């Protein structure tokens, strides 16, 4: 067991970080959200650098590291779906945005308005639906990621990807979600700590008060655990129980981080001048995706304690 990155992993991560620091970040996320746009420039840059094909060319753990880092940088892009989920199901990774859809879902779908490929989880199978990018109706969103509407007919159409593909799609989707939640939670917490260190009250930095520190420490423990749980699941190839544990933990952590960071930052956290909302609003939508922590917990029960489970 080794929780340190090796030379190659560190090199990949360093160049991912450099690229993201130049081309993503909260300021850009705010500008894109105002236009309801997807970050096509970032997608091009990531593809040219080879990062979108990490899963097939290096491994799922490296792709997972990318997804977590992109979420920390508030990338407005389908990195999780394209770099981690699609490679687990398709022989060729699509060059167009990918949206993940639940056949029984009714609500708007992340990134669907820009997607060229829909991966639909429909019971036992997953289906691949090709659509003209930009053909699906956009839905206005206050959560940072652009949304789109996927009509019922499309949710039931497309090419089936074979036995077991439905379950495989859900597993990798859960993993991507856990990584995105963990990255956004980490960033929300870091933004808050930085603010509390400079903001003064009673002649001291707010962050120096013990009551504040304890609350931050609890959030820090949870975000740290979320990240390792998700990376561990990626390392093991996204087994059902591990991804459900990672996603449930990350969703519960997100709820706590949302509550605490906004309580501790006060009203400024909600303003557009402060970066916190970029991450916290994302947490609110991501933590409910795929049914939220209740559904993830139910998946754990099924994997762990069902008839015939180990």
């Amino acid at each position, binding site marked *: 067991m*080794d929780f340190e990155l090796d030379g190659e992993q560190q090199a990949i991560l360093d160049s991912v970080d450099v690229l993201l620091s130049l081309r993503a970040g909260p300021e850009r996320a705010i500008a894109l959200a105002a236009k309801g746009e997807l970050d096509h420039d970032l997608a091009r840059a990531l593809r040219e650098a080879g990062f979108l094909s990490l899963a097939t060319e290096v491994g799922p753990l490296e792709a997972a590291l990318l997804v977590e880092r992109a979420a920390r940088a508030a990338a407005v892009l389908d990195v999780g779906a394209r770099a981690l989920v699609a490679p687990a199901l398709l022989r060729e990774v699509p060059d167009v945005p990918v949206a993940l859809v639940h056949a029984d879902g009714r609500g708007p779908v992340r990134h669907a308005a820009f997607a060229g490929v829909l991966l639909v989880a429909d019971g036992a199978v997953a289906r691949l639906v090709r659509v003209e990018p930009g053909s699906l109706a956009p839905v206005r969103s206050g959560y940072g990621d652009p949304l789109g509407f996927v009509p019922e007919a499309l949710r039931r159409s497309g090419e089936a990807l074979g036995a077991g593909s439905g379950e495989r799609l859900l597993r990798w989707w859960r993993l991507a979600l856990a990584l995105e939640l963990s990255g956004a939670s980490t960033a929300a917490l870091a933004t808050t700590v930085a603010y509390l260190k400079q903001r003064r009250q009673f002649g001291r930095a707010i962050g120096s008060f013990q009551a504040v520190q304890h609350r931050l420490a609890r959030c820090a423990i949870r975000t740290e655990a979320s990240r390792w749980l998700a990376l561990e699941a990626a390392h093991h190839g996204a087994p059902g129980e591990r991804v459900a544990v990672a996603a449930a933990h990350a969703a519960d952590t997100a709820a706590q981080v949302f509550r605490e960071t906004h309580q501790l930052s006060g009203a400024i956290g909600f303003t557009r001048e402060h970066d916190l909302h970029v991450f916290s609003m994302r947490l609110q939508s991501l933590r409910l995706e795929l049914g939220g922590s209740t559904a993830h917990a139910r998946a754990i029960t099924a994997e762990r304690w069902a008839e015939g489970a180990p």
Partner: protein
Amino acid sequence: MSLDLAFSSEQLAVGEAVAGFCRERVGGAPPAGDCPADWWQGLAELGVLELASPEAEGGALEATAAFEELGAVAFPGPVVEALIGGQVLRREERAAVARGALRVSVGTHDLAPFVPGCEVQLEVSGQSLFRAPLAAGFESLSSLDAEPVARGVRTREERLERSRAGLDLGRLLLAAYLVGAARRVVALAADHARTRTQFGRPIGDFQAVAHPLADVYIGVASAETLTHAAACEWDERRDEGEGPSPGLAAAAWLAAREAALEACHVAHQVMGAQGMTLEGPLYPLSRRIRQRASHAIGTATARESMVARLDARVGESLG
């Protein structure tokens, strides 16, 4: 080296050896009170009592693998304390601890667990460990699970040099022990819920039972992951000749403590009166979890370490 998140074969072998020993000696329910002398000798022969010390081949990961198994059977006695001794005591004392000939107590300013019976008596105060033997004429008390505790007046002889390393390893091993115990507690409750029928179906079918069990399972899994990450960090820094970094072991200890206590709470709810019988299997585990969760190492300094880590992290990422 690479990011590799599974136990190596050596670590698995240590875990299996300890598990085999526990199966053979402890069997079903562990006894209340202190560790029988022959069990202690058995641990020494297995090499468990010297893990992670400067002389040992195995580091914190091997120790973690071993302590998860000890926790799973609620193994009695000052085992965590022995390995703390392996960090802070003098060379010849460390050798005696490894042989099982010298036992170490780690307590608060006036309470010393496992005394009499421990020749070396240490006191925790903040982030420091003192050699502080109890004066003669102490009062013998009994704790929740009949482990002996002495109350009396200590004389501080010296502050031990590697206090931080000792406390950090202590937090890490307490976490591993609690994770092992909590996993077993959750498994017992789940088995009960699966097999016990009420109103014609297993009670585990009921959302009201399944959901809290899944919740505590998540808590235990996350504490386990933090424990492994902390053990890796410990070994990494030891190889590079650095002292322990603050934070990760503290996070593991706080998370494991909370998860294990919550696991006990839920398991007792699920198992009802069956969970309260002395013969077990639940009660001996939950009793010892409570005992270990109130270890003298405490939670206040662990939270401080966690904040220090958070501070350092933010310093890095935000320049």
